[in-house]
């Protein structure tokens, strides 16, 4: 075991050296610093305006959540980085070694090749952590100017972006390993990204299986964390994508095995990854870490709903693109899924167009059924739906929850230090580190 860690450490150190020699990585750091800075400054400005700065009307304080107002927009820069910048860093590291022969020399070294690929994955993850430092400095800055941070939702969001990086590493590693050149790998990576956008678009219109799959595209997965919800299924799927990508990169390596054997092993790895994703998607455990409990019913309602022993089924006669379905899904059904033990939700009209096709006479209806009782409601209002659920299941509605409501955190502040930090200090630090690492490498004796 000691030998394993020693070899892994050696490989990681070399991979980090290679990353530091990559211009793409330093450019990504510079771009991320500027993007985060711009996003943070805009977010703080809008937040201050919403809080009543500048003489405008202030929003209700309950509506002012730092998660939605500051954290999500600031870290949104990392979604852009993970989509359009980081893939090139990953591809450069792996495809370049394949092209220049370093990969072959490492294939002949004692560690099994899986360890070699794992070291690349860990080095890239480390690189992603470093890239997240400007975002973390924005959090400190926000705290410093008096902004409120709720640790669970902040950590949940950071976890989401770490997993976004993990999934990008996995996919791009596989793309690099299956391609003959870095350019081909980049095309594959971009095709995948555009494909997920197309999937989101079609899923919004068609629903059904596409909508289920689209729940786990990188963008949709991030939205879960941005809502302050941590779903084990999402974590599992993003982790599987990351690790299976590295596994595919390992099976595709030119190790002397015939192409058929490599394809067979890669297919097996892909099959195992899909199976794991399907299994992970069945995990319903989730936690609402948002301070304003936006993903939960009140605590008393949750206790009552959790004690419903009989199966409850819900038939939603709404088309996928119908905005009422979106309201119902986000405001009610997602919360019901988290607490009702035996819940089945069906969408008989999800594949239809609400504008041009009808689902018989039932379009627009939502039917709730439990223990032989059926009730229909067209409402997407939480209180009305909960009352219907209690009626159909025979549960006694709980008394009103007396827990303190979310106070909201208005803040009319500006950070004068932020522009200096993001547009001067960080770029100078990054450029200094870049030049320093380069100088260390290019010293020539004599």
């Amino acid at each position, binding site marked *: 075991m000691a*030998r*394993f860690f020693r*070899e892994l450490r*050696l*490989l990681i150190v*070399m991979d980090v*050296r*290679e990353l530091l*020699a990559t211009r793409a990585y330093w450019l990504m750091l510079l771009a991320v610093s500027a993007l985060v800075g711009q996003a943070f400054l805009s977010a703080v400005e809008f937040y201050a305006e919403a809080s009543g700065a500048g003489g405008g009307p202030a929003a209700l304080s309950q509506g002012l959540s730092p998660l939605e107002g500051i954290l999500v927009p600031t870290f949104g820069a990392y979604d852009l980085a993970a989509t359009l910048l980081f893939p090139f860093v990953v591809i450069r590291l792996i495809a370049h*070694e394949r092209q*220049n*022969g*370093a990969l*072959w*020399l490492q*294939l*002949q*070294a*004692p*560690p*099994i090749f899986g*360890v070699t690929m794992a070291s690349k994955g860990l080095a890239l993850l480390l690189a992603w952590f470093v890239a997240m430092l400007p975002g973390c400095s924005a959090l400190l800055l926000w705290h410093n100017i008096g902004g409120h941070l709720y640790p669970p939702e902040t950590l949940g969001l950071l976890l989401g972006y770490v997993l976004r990086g993990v999934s990008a590493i996995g996919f791009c590693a596989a793309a690099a390993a299956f391609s003959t050149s870095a350019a081909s790998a980049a095309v594959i990576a971009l095709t995948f990204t555009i494909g997920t956008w197309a999937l989101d678009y079609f899923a919004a219109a068609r629903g059904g299986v596409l909508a289920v799959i689209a729940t786990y595209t990188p963008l949709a997965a991030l939205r879960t964390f941005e809502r302050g919800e941590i779903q084990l299924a999402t974590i599992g799927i993003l982790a599987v994508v990351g690790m299976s990508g590295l596994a595919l990169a390992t099976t595709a390596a*030119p*190790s*002397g*095995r*015939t*192409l058929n054997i490599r394809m067979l092993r890669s297919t097996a790895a892909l099959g195992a990854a899909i199976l794991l994703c399907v299994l992970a998607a069945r995990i319903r455990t989730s936690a609402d870490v948002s301070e304003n409990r936006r993903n939960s019913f009140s605590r008393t309602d949750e206790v009552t709903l959790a004690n419903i022993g009989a199966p409850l089924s819900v038939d939603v006669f709404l088309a996928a693109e119908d905005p009422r379905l979106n309201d119902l899904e986000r405001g009610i059904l997602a919360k019901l899924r988290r607490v009702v033990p035996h819940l089945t939700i069906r969408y008989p009209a999800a594949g239809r167009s609400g504008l041009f096709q009808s689902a018989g006479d039932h379009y627009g209806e939502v039917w709730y059924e439990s223990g032989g009782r059926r009730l229909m409601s067209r409402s997407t209002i939480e209180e009305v739906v909960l009352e219907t659920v209690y009626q159909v299941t025979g549960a006694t509605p709980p008394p009103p929850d007396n827990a303190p409501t979310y106070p909201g955190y208005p803040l009319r502040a500006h950070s004068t230090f932020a522009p200096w930090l993001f547009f001067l200090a960080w770029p100078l630090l990054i450029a200094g580190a870049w030049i320093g690492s380069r100088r260390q*490498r*290019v*010293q*020539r*004796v*004599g």
Partner: protein
Amino acid sequence: MGSYGRPYCRQLDVVPPFGDARVIISRVHEITLRVDNLSRRHGAFWALRDASFATSPGEILGLIGPNGSGKTTLVECVAGIQSPTSGKIFVGEKEIPPERRKEFLYLVPDGIRPWPDQTVMTVLRFIAALHRNSANALERIVQELALTPLMHSRLVELSKGEHRRVMLGIGLLTPQPILVLDEPFDGLDFRQTRDVIAVLRRHAQGGRTLFLSIHQLPDAERICDRLLLLNAGRIVGDGTLPQLQQTTGLGSGMLEDIFMALT
């Protein structure tokens, strides 16, 4: 996994070839490589056809042939980079699958430019540490190949000859009992070639088998104990220089004459 030779050698009933590079020199003498009817076809073109030969411990075996004769295909099939269309590789009496060949042989391919942005020192230290070779061995090889002035240079800055010497250093730092070098003298001047030949000889005398793919015939004559002559994918001659002279009836003929006579 990650056995790197030892359990497999127990299974093969041969001495573990390495593990600790500092003691391999005393352990490698029993490792022989046998190539049996190796063929490689690209579409309708046979790059290699029924190549069979064996290595002896501690010998320098030269693979000689003109450009396009199949030398690189042969060494890459032996090392496991390419999968042959047919044929087998044995160590002792046991067939070795491609993924386990790294336990017995190490190939330094021709034309690679690995880790271009790293310094020579970083790369050699990395290879030595990865293969558990000692700092003393690293120092010795650096001196043997006159790499000291280059240690702080990035690989991308090196001349062709300097880069070739670094690649040789990488090969010599590995502990596998058989070292395969594709065009080891390519880019070296006369003096460097002579010095490298002396270095390779010393390592072969230590018991390591060297399998060199060479296209410069005078260099091959000077260094190789035995020669494999390859032409159009087929082995047309196998033996020491005197044996080949005898086979062709060219008493004191040069290798070039022998090759011409055989092809």
